[in-house]
């Protein structure tokens, strides 16, 4: 149904390795999820213009917010999914699929660039994973 949606409608799946199996990580993410698609511009302001002008160059890029949440050692959960960063030049990508509601889906090919485990007093142990987007962000 068209309209507004909240975090209860969002879901995220992420492959557990390059070209791996998609795992639902929604239940572990404590800080939400954001997907950004960008189009690169170049300034085309020229002599005679009274206002600045920008023109797309035909190149897009994507950004995904750092994933942060609950660290779990259960099989197919966050430690198993993120503990091996992608370090092979021939590695396949890892697909991330984010649904924000009303079946609006962003599909992104990524590389897992870093994985961090954080333990602190009076809290459960958390993880933090940085992914870099490679290729286009595809909305459907």
């Amino acid at each position, binding site marked *: 149904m068209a309209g507004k949606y909240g975090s209860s409608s969002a879901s995220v799946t992420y492959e557990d390795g390059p070209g791996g199996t998609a795992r639902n990580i929604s239940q572990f993410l404590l800080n939400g999820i954001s997907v950004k698609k960008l189009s690169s511009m170049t300034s085309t302001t020229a002599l005679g213009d009274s206002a600045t002008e920008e023109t797309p160059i035909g*190149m897009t890029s*994507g950004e995904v917010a750092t994933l942060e949440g609950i660290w*779990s050692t259960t099989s197919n959960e966050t430690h198993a999914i993120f503990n091996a960063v992608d370090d092979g030049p021939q590695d396949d990508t890892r697909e991330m699929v984010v649904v924000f509601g009303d079946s609006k889906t962003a599909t992104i090919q990524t590389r897992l660039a*870093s994985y961090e485990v*954080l333990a602190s007093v009076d809290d*459960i142990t958390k993880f*933090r994973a940085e992914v870099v987007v*490679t290729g286009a962000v595809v909305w459907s």
Partner: protein
Amino acid sequence: MAGKYSGQNVKLYVDGYDLLGSNPKGLNVKLSSAMEDTTGLGSSAIEQSPVGLTSVELTQEGAIFDTGTAEIHAAMVSSLPTTPQATARVVSLGFAGTTRGVPAYGVESTFNTEYEVIAEQGGLTKANVTYNVSGALNDSVVVEYATAKTADWNTESSSVDNSASSAGGAVAYQQTFLLTGFSAFVGTVRDSPNDSAWSDLIVFDDEGTTIGAQRKTVAGSCDRYLSYAGNVTGTGTVSVFVTVERT
């Protein structure tokens, strides 16, 4: 047991020193892979590829300055490297407790690059440590956590099952964080194809008479099951934390 964990499940050992005795407030370990922009002519979207180089960051936040034997001041005061030939430190850490088979980390080659002691008005004196890691992060499992052993022992009756053998060798870390009285202590990681017939896989050097840590590797095949055996000489007490990564 698989699942979620908290700060109470953390272990941190540096060269046999148990640094949790100084009550650090936080512990982070971060593994990163360097990427290169491989976007070329004809691409319509930015592309990134791994270059095959990883790095490790290890951060320990806010410990209490303690001059007790085998506490943080003894562990750090003389540890900063002063020559290019300085020996790196052996670090083991865990976030999931000490049950055999749970995940843990060994850090291949670590130097303490900063040791700071801070006396503050109205508070306990604190000690901060900065680590610089040179080498790999070994994603391991706990094979043994034993405290106050007074005689030879082994874990063959409660081994760690990998479900299958592996062929790429292994890396083992042994942190001996308590060692008193004995004239010798030798730890051994052992493997078995059937959980009954055991053979030595990695034999650590004699730890002698004081705490310490060792990192050892073996090439070739490792059988499905892993266990640990501790062999002591004389009368005394020993405690160890041992982890293994199948590489």
